[in-house]
């Protein structure tokens, strides 16, 4: 891993399209500004990891298991549909 020391307001560039600016530091929290092209998604890693785990869980769900839990959902959506059309 490349390790760099930066002061507030200083910038790191990655390639020609990504910049990372150190905005502030306060009580153990670093605020960072990131500019990247639209097709490069930028996310907090813990959010990203949670979504991967949820996708993995979702791939294990079977129609039978889901059916037994969504009876109520079907009722609820029927109500939503009715209120939508009125």
């Amino acid at each position: 891993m490349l390790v760099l020391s930066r002061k507030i307001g200083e910038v790191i560039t990655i390639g020609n399209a990504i910049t990372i600016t150190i905005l502030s530091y306060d009580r153990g929290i670093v605020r960072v500004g990131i500019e990247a092209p639209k097709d490069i998604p930028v996310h907090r890693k813990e959010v990203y990891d949670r979504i991967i785990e949820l996708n993995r869980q979702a791939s294990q769900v079977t129609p039978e298991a889901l059916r037994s839990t969504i009876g109520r959902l079907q009722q609820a959506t029927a109500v939503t549909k009715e209120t939508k059309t009125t």
Partner: protein
Amino acid sequence: MPLPTMASNPPTSSIRKLTTEQFGEILVEERHMFTFPNGLLGFEQLHHFIIVRDERTEPVRWLLSVEHPELSFPVISPYFLQPDYAVGKEYSDPQRYTPLVILTLGSSGATANMKAPIILDVEHQHGQQIIIPSDKYSTVHPIGVQQTSQR
């Protein structure tokens, strides 16, 4: 002079047969397939999906991998769960983009990942999973039980 070989390529799209444990045999027309250039998060190797309807679970449908038909993900329109759901300006054209959210069964029942919807581009048969940056939407939005108990 070589002629274009139109006659040997009839315009009908080819049909593939998938054998699945959960849904039996499924015939898939290639034009109904969605291409996911980046796959799903954690499943980056999956690039082709279809939407499977199963009357046992309607209105929940299944995003099924064409490459690995044993892998499928329960999905539902987020508008069923939250009528004012909004994925962001760039996907706001309802003629072109259809959002779906993935459901999970966890210890607290069924939840929907409202923060990381799948966006289908029905004009180009493309799909992608995005992450909505704001804190407005939860990755584990409770469904069904809470909604009915509120009424």
